[in-house]
């Protein structure tokens, strides 16, 4: 495919209605091709594989909605939450802090250096939350009542109530935060102006909501001191979750920026592509600082809870794996920044994501109910559903980036930040 240019139709005569519609469709949806040509471009080996995965996942999701959670999950009274929440909610949401972290840097602290990645970071955040809700809809026993905490019945003493409100509000905030790109794509200039004018307010609101519910996600486990292994249970859980979400978000932006450089080069402008290295160095420095803070607080928390005596047990060894990983990454980031080694920072970011996912899995699944004798962690069908939903998420991301100005400035708004 050629580099991106807005196509303009020049004709002398008046266009008929049908022509206007087909031009619009071709322009907005089919990447400037006719529908037939567009459908042909979709038939690639990679898309076929993605399609098969999605079909498999949809089949199991259908089973879940006909025969209950039991049909596809290992859910039991010993393990009420499984892979859907461990992955979709507890691991997915921390990385979705990307929108508020980069948004704050650019719009509040005025760090213009990160401007090229801010729209992408907000899109990643929005999709992260959207798909967290998708996972929640699959996992809730009665998903058609998902709005009940907002409008019907209020469990005000519940951390889950807080999470429900904040995810709902923040999803809306991110929708509006991303809307300038959507409106540029649709060519709605006045609405876009309005959306842009809300940026500062939305960013501040986003920080408030994120602080509270990033921490709330782990604070839910404060209620289960006897059930979560002492090496993970600590009254610091909320703050550890908040700090690590910032580290995770930065890591995600570094990794995805690299991936777009390789796979979505055609949809990016030269300003975006040429600034990635510099941005990666800056983000690497920030990640190093954040993760050093996290490591310090984490070690203090284990000491504070007097849990070191569990170190020489199987759960202790597993804890060591996690903590070694999370302790190594800030040093690697620091080293990478010192040596100006962009590639090292990018690999370290990927490693950081693994560490944070491991941490959230340990809290919500592996080290939870650790005293019970037999537990099945998850069923392979759950994994298929998770892979399928992630595939859909990637396809949606690609669909949007292929069309909307995310990795580039729209030619009409070049000077307008």
């Amino acid at each position, binding site marked *: 495919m050629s580099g991106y240019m807005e196509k303009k139709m020049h004709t002398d005569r008046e266009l008929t209605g049908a022509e206007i519609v087909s031009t619009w469709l071709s322009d907005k949806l089919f990447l400037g091709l006719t529908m037939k040509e567009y459908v042909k471009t979709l038939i690639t080996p990679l898309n076929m594989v993605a399609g098969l995965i999605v079909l498999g996942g949809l089949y199991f999701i259908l089973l879940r909605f*006909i025969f209950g959670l039991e049909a596809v999950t290992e859910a039991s*009274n010993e393990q009420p939450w499984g892979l859907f929440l461990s992955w979709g909610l507890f691991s997915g949401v921390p990385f979705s802090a990307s929108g508020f972290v980069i948004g704050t840097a650019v719009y509040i602290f005025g760090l213009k250096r990160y401007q090229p990645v801010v729209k992408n970071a907000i899109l990643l955040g929005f999709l992260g939350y959207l798909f967290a809700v998708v996972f929640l809809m699959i996992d809730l026993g009665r998903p058609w*009542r*998902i709005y009940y905490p907002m409008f019907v*019945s209020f469990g005000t003493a519940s951390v*889950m109530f807080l999470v429900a409100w904040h995810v709902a509000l923040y999803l809306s905030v991110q929708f509006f935060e991303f809307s300038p790109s959507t409106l540029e794509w649709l060519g709605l200039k006045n609405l876009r102006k309005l959306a842009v004018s809300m940026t500062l307010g939305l960013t*501040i609101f986003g*920080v408030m909501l994120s602080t509270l519910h990033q921490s709330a996600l782990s604070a839910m*486990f404060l209620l289960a001191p006897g059930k979560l292994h002492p090496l993970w249970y600590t009254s610091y859980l909320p703050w550890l979750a908040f700090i690590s979400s910032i580290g995770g978000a930065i890591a995600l932006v570094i990794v995805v920026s690299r991936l777009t450089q390789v796979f979505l080069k055609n949809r990016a402008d030269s300003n975006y592509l040429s600034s990635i290295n510099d941005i990666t160095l800056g983000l690497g420095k920030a990640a190093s600082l954040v993760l050093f803070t996290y490591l310090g607080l984490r070690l203090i928390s284990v000491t504070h809870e007097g849990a070191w005596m569990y170190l020489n047990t199987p759960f202790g060894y597993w804890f060591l794996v996690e903590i070694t990983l999370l302790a190594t990454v800030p040093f690697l980031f620091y080293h990478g920044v010192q040596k100006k080694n962009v590639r090292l920072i990018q690999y370290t970011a990927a490693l950081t994501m693994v560490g944070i996912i491991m941490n959230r899995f340990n809290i919500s699944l592996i080290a939870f109910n650790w005293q019970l004798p037999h537990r099945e962690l998850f069923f392979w069908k759950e994994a298929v559903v998770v892979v399928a939903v992630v595939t859909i998420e990637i396809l949606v991301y690609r669909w949007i980036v292929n069309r909307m100005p995310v990795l580039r400035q729209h030619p009409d708004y070049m000077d307008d930040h």
Partner: protein
Amino acid sequence: MVTRRNFLKIGGSVIAWSVLGGRALASLDFEGNPDRFGMLSDMTRCIGCRRCEAACNKANNLPAPKTSFEDTSVFEEKRKPYVADVQSYTAVNRYEVNGKTVYRKVQCMHCDEPACVSACPVAALKKSKEGPVTWNEKVCIGCRYCIIACPFYVPAYEYSSAFSPNVQKCFMCYHRISEGVIPACTEACPVEAITFGRRSDLIKQAKLRIWGEPDKYIDHIYGEQEAGGTGWLYISGVPFSELDFQMDVGITSYPKLTKDFLSMVNLTLVSWPALLGGFYLASKRKQHTAHDEISDKEDDKQ
């Protein structure tokens, strides 16, 4: 429908919640009724006849079990009240401790300040004025946070149901209590091993029994203080730790574990806008100054 009344109700709770935070409302939620009911299990009396299980099954219209309630082979394993293929609100388990045979009835503990109630985002679970912890089928969304939260591993979920999965546990025969009838298990017990009454009276009674026969009983009422106090109380002739009782639940009520966090909500809502607004203005000013300096230099050149 959004009527004015509903609107006020919703708006009111949102405002009240954001102003007061979880803390104030939480303590209102758990204001205990001094006359609340409870149950006392005396494990020195229980003979393992399982008539309480049978009565419970009947009173709650639960499906018939695989084997009859007279079958004692069920004691070969330690049963949980409600699992995928056994639908019951209570189960009696047998223990051999120091040559003595002891039976323990398992069911919801009906905590004074239940973890499950503070976990529920839609207030489907409630500590009723009368004492039982109840569940409202009409608002439950099926998030199962109650099951995560309960320190006694009690609430169960119907994972095999796609359309109306229920949370299952003992409700202390709330439907009978509200009509002035005592719970079915108490009524069925032939040896008065289960006593129903005001919780405060039951504690006195338990103490009298322990003081009356100090050699027969362990000097402890399980549930008097555990997890902040439970509605179901146990007294025993052998250590509770030998009977699979949770010994790690402590004596503070579970909702307290999240109250401090919830009270941070207001602080965050107030402080972030002020701080960030300040940062924004500061960074704007810095840019302006930098910009001015540059133009000054350009002026100098000219």
